[in-house]
C-alpha cells in the first residue's frame, strides 16, 4: 500500500471511533438478546460478521422469537436493507474505484452510520478508497466483536434478565425511531401508517408477511405527503 493510502486508511480508522462507540453497546445487547431468541453464541457472532445490519438483525431475532418462518424473515430484512442501494449509488461514484473487487469490498461495509460519517466528515481524507476501508473496518469489527462478547455474557445472565432484554428490543426500536422522526412530520406519519397497515394485515396474513406488507405500503405513504425539503435531499 502506498504511503498516502496507508495514511488515508488510518484517518478512516480514526473517523470510525464515534461509530464504534455507538455500535459496541448495541452489538453487546444483540448478543445478549440473541441468547433469549434461542440462537447459539456462534450464530450471534456469525450473523454480525456476515449479515451486518443493526435494525435488520434485531428484527430477525424478534421474528424468530415469534416463530416466523424463514422466507418471511429474509424478505423483511431484504426490504429493510434496500436503502443501501441508494446510499451506495450516492457514495461509490465519489470514490471512482476502477477495480470491481475493491468497489465491492467498500460497498459491502457501508452502513447508515459509516455512510453518514464518510459524507459529513470534516476530514476529506476519509472519503477516499483507503479511508473508507479503514472506516468500515473499524465499524464492522466493533459490531461482530461486541456481539460475540454479548452472546458469551448471556450465558452468565439469569433467565429473568434475559426476558427483560427481549422487552428491551422494543426500547431499542423506539430509541431509533424517536430521534429519527423528531422535527420530521413525514417520518412520523409513515411510521404510524406502517403500524396501522401491520395491525390490519395481521388479520389476513402471517405476522412476517404482514411486516413486509407494512414496510412496502407504509413507505408508499410518502407519495401522499408533501414533497420533502431540500435539507433531506442534501443528505443523499
Amino acid at each position, binding site marked *: 500500500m502506498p504511503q498516502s493510502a496507508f495514511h488515508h486508511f488510518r484517518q478512516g480508522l480514526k473517523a470510525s471511533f464515534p461509530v464504534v462507540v455507538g455500535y459496541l453497546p448495541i452489538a453487546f445487547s444483540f448478543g445478549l438478546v440473541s441468547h433469549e431468541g434461542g*440462537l*447459539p453464541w456462534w*450464530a450471534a457472532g*456469525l*450473523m454480525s460478521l456476515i*449479515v451486518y445490519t443493526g*435494525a*435488520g438483525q434485531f428484527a*430477525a431475532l*424478534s421474528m424468530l422469537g*415469534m416463530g416466523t418462518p424463514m422466507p418471511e*424473515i*429474509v*424478505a423483511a*430484512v*431484504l426490504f*429493510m*436493507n*434496500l*436503502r*443501501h*442501494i*441508494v446510499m*451506495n*449509488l450516492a457514495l*461509490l*461514484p465519489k470514490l*471512482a474505484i476502477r477495480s470491481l473487487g475493491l468497489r*465491492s469490498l*467498500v*460497498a*459491502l461495509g*457501508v452502513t447508515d452510520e459509516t455512510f453518514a460519517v464518510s459524507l459529513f466528515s470534516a476530514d476529506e481524507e476519509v472519503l477516499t478508497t483507503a479511508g473508507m476501508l479503514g472506516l468500515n473496518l473499524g465499524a464492522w469489527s466493533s459490531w461482530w466483536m461486541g456481539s460475540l462478547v454479548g452472546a458469551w455474557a448471556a450465558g452468565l445472565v439469569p433467565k429473568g434478565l434475559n426476558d*427483560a432484554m427481549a*422487552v428491551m428490543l*422494543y426500547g431499542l*426500536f*423506539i430509541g431509533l*425511531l424517536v430521534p429519527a422522526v423528531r422535527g420530521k412530520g413525514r*417520518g412520523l406519519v*409513515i*411510521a*404510524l*401508517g*406502517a*403500524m396501522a397497515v*401491520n*395491525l390490519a394485515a*395481521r388479520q389476513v396474513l402471517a405476522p412476517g408477511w*404482514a411486516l413486509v406488507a407494512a*414496510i*412496502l405500503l*407504509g*413507505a*408508499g405513504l*410518502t*407519495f401522499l405527503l408533501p414533497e*420533502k425539503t431540500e435539507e*433531506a435531499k442534501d443528505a*443523499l
Partner: protein
Amino acid sequence: MRSDLLLILALSLSTALPRLLPAFLGDRFRPPEAFRRWLDAVPFAALGALIFPGILWRIHLHL
C-alpha cells in the same frame, strides 16, 4: 442448528445484494426520483411496523 446456519446465510445475501448492486451498476446509473423517495421512507415504515403491534404481545406476556 442447521436451520440457524441456513437462515444466517440467506440473511447475509439479503444484506449483501442491495449493497453490492451499485458496485456492479457502475457510476452512470441514477435511480428514478420516485424510487429514491420510497426508499428514504422505508426505514421509518420498518421501525413503525416492528414496534406495533408486536409490543402489545410482549407487554402482555410480561405483565
